[in-house]
């Protein structure tokens, strides 16, 4: 165990030194920390482990790259501008209703794909400009966009953190729909109104037209919406109605992006592709490095040290401990948090709680890690989309929704038997 403690200290020191003193990119800091962990634990350079770990998120990386291509295509052909303008023209008099609708719209891709990153990448660019037009500042907009995407990931029917925990404890993923809806919908409405309503302006028609400028009276051809229609159709046909085999999100995004050629606008293909890949390169780098980091944590025993440390605390505070450690581990990867911490916590809580409701609560705790740096994929992309950088400001603004969500998740686990009595 001494070797594991040494590895933990060295990995943490290398990461902190490179990140805060040398100010290198987070992906490089994580990769170097992983390399240091290999060296100090007597595994040499551990190249095999570093490469194996970096492949953990290959599928996610492909989703991000192709989603970004899709976003750049609809931005280039004018679909984004058309959608945000039309939403504002229709709802400018009712900001509360508009904000709630935007949050639910933000949640939809995550509900179907199970990925908050895909949600921010696909709908974030539509929602963020509308929030900005309503007068909400960029930092709050980024926080709300990320929050909607993260709640979408937890909402039914697809909740990947819950599915991962279920796999680890052999609980079938059935009867989760209602508990998950009760978990996310009140939070979505409450947080959106608390954070957004004060800042959102109720516009007059003149103000709205002045805000939109020449776009106010502009008529948009239906052909502009072809890429979005194709995307929605493909998701409905593969995921909801299951009429055609699931072609996975990367191909879905690529086909939808290709349909942008039918929008009637000239598409600078090479520039758009280069721009898309360039934009998401840092995020893809972080994901690869996170994979390496977790692999070396497992190799050196640092992972076990953290898990056993969490379980060592008194059982009475275990749920609160889970609410603190799961988002913190989620700072590296929320899926990693669900798998590494969610499974042991679920097993430890098995006899004292209703496991279905408890898993719902634990999955929300893990998901909050998507806000926490260094990885913070959903948060970082939202910040970029809303133009709210540096990301630290978004984290500070998000402390309120994170805290509300974690308190609600703790209550959900604590009162799981009573909630199950009503819902299941």
């Amino acid at each position, binding site marked *: *165990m001494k*070797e*594991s403690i040494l590895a933990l200290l060295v990995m943490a020191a290398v990461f902190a030194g490179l990140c805060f003193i040398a100010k290198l990119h987070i992906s490089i800091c994580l990769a170097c920390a992983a390399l240091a962990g290999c060296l100090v*634990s007597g595994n040499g350079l551990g*190249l*095999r*482990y*570093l*490469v*194996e*770990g970096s*492949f*953990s998120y290959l*599928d996610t990386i*492909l989703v991000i790259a192709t989603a970004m291509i899709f976003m750049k295509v609809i931005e280039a052909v004018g679909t984004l501008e058309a959608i945000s303008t039309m939403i504002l023209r229709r709802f400018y008099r009712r900001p509360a209703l508009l904000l709630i609708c935007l949050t639910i719209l933000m949640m939809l891709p995550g509900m179907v*794909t*199970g*990925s908050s990153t895909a949600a921010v990448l696909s709908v974030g660019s539509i929602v963020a400009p509308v929030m900005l037009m309503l007068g909400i500042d960029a930092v709050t907009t980024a926080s709300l966009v990320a929050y909607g995407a993260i709640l979408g990931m937890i909402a039914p*029917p*697809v909740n*990947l953190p819950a*599915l*991962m925990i*279920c*796999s*680890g*404890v*052999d609980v*079938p*993923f*059935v009867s989760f729909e209602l508990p998950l809806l009760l978990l996310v919908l009140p939070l979505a409405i409450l947080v959106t109104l608390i954070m957004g309503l004060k800042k959102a302006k109720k516009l007059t028609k003149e103000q709205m037209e002045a805000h939109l400028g020449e776009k106010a009276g502009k008529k948009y051809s239906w052909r502009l919406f072809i890429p979005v229609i194709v995307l929605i159709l493909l998701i409905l046909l593969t*995921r909801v109605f*299951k009429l055609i085999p*699931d072609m*996975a*999100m*990367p191909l879905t995004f690529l086909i939808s992006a290709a349909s942008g050629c039918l929008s009637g606008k000239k598409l600078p293909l090479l520039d758009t592709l280069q721009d898309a890949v360039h934009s998401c390169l840092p995020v893809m780098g972080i994901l690869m490095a996170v*994979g390496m980091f*977790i*692999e*070396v944590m*497992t*190799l*050196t*025993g640092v*992972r*076990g*040290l953290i*898990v*056993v440390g969490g*379980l*060592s605390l008194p059982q009475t505070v275990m749920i609160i401990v889970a609410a603190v450690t799961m988002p913190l581990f989620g700072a590296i990867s929320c899926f*990693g948090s669900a*798998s*590494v911490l969610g*499974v*042991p916590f679920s*097993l*430890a809580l*098995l006899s004292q709680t209703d496991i279905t409701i408890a898993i719902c609560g634990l999955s929300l705790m893990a998901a909050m890690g998507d806000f926490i740096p260094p990885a913070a994929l959903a948060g970082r992309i939202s910040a970029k989309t809303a133009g709210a950088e540096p990301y630290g400001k978004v984290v500070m603004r998000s402390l309120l929704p994170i805290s509300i969500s974690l308190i609600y998740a703790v209550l959900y686990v604590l009162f799981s038997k009573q909630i199950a009595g009503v819902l299941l």
Partner: protein
Amino acid sequence: MKEKTSGRLSFLRNKLFQNLFCALLILTVAVLTGYEFYTFRHYREEIRVPEGTEIQHLSDYLPSLKGTAGDTEIYVFRGEEKGGSLLVMGGTHADELAGHLSAVIMAENLKVTRGTVFVMPRANNSGFTNNFPQEASPMYVEIPTAGGVRTLVYGSRATNPVDQWPDPDLYTHFPSGQGLSGSETRNLNRSYPGRENGSFTERVAFAIKNLILENGIDLTIDLHEASPEYPNINSSVLHERAMKLSGDASLELNDIGISMRMEVSPATLHGLTHRELGDYTNTLAVLMETANPCQGRIRGATNAALAVSGKDACYEQAAKLGYLYVPYDENGVPIEERCGRHLQAVQVYAEALGWVFGEEYTIDMSGLPGYDELVKGSVGDWLR
């Protein structure tokens, strides 16, 4: 002087140099690790069965598996007298060493005088060609034997992505429609009853189902391991039709000092051997679990020694805190104890088949070590 040094090192700022350096670094890492992964994928693990042993292949039951990593050897031991039939599967999950090794020991030592025994040590052969990312599993474990060191593969819980990729976000099990996390699509023990034209893993499952149907196998035992914090440990999980058999076998095991809990297969948890093979064939399907600390999330440093010795300080602490479902102390759970449980249980279940269903189902077999023999000795004593 400082300026001179900066001048000498100015090439470091050259974009072309930086790009070439990065490309060379990536290429070097790719070649070095690529060679290691390639060697692992093509490593031929030896199973030294007695001369004259009948060898079938899984592709005999689904020809489309021929020439793929899904094809695997099935060793058949036929007694001179007719009797019951038994299939023993190891390596459904290639990172569950005791399941695989117990089947290897069976294949190398078994003698059958009555009935027929099929042994398949690498049920998901593709799982033996990769490791699961973020698990940091060893690629190989070495077992000392009288004739030298035997090297066994320590693989992955899932089919190699080289054989089946990409994973869907949500895996929908066929035919139940049950939703599971995407990576479970490569888990053989979530893919039964399988499909002839389904995914790679579904085809492996389909072939195993065909093997059972075509040979009218009476009893199927799937040997597994699980982490010590998993509740269904040191237990058998069984299809409801195997209740009577398991009850009698568990009592017998208890009499000889092996506590084996019985869990009935949940009707709503689909894709597993004990559910689907019981539902889709006439076999009595049973899955057995022992404790492997090298799989658990609480484990400390991960390496081949842990996989064999089962000794881990983090698990010791977790045991003191009351989070484990097996007795655990500084002696760990060595491979001898884990294989001993499996092999003793297989022998008792095979024997019980005759007691419970009548003489025509009797299987007489010998040559295998019991629990005591393994615990007092070494697994290496039973490898050729």
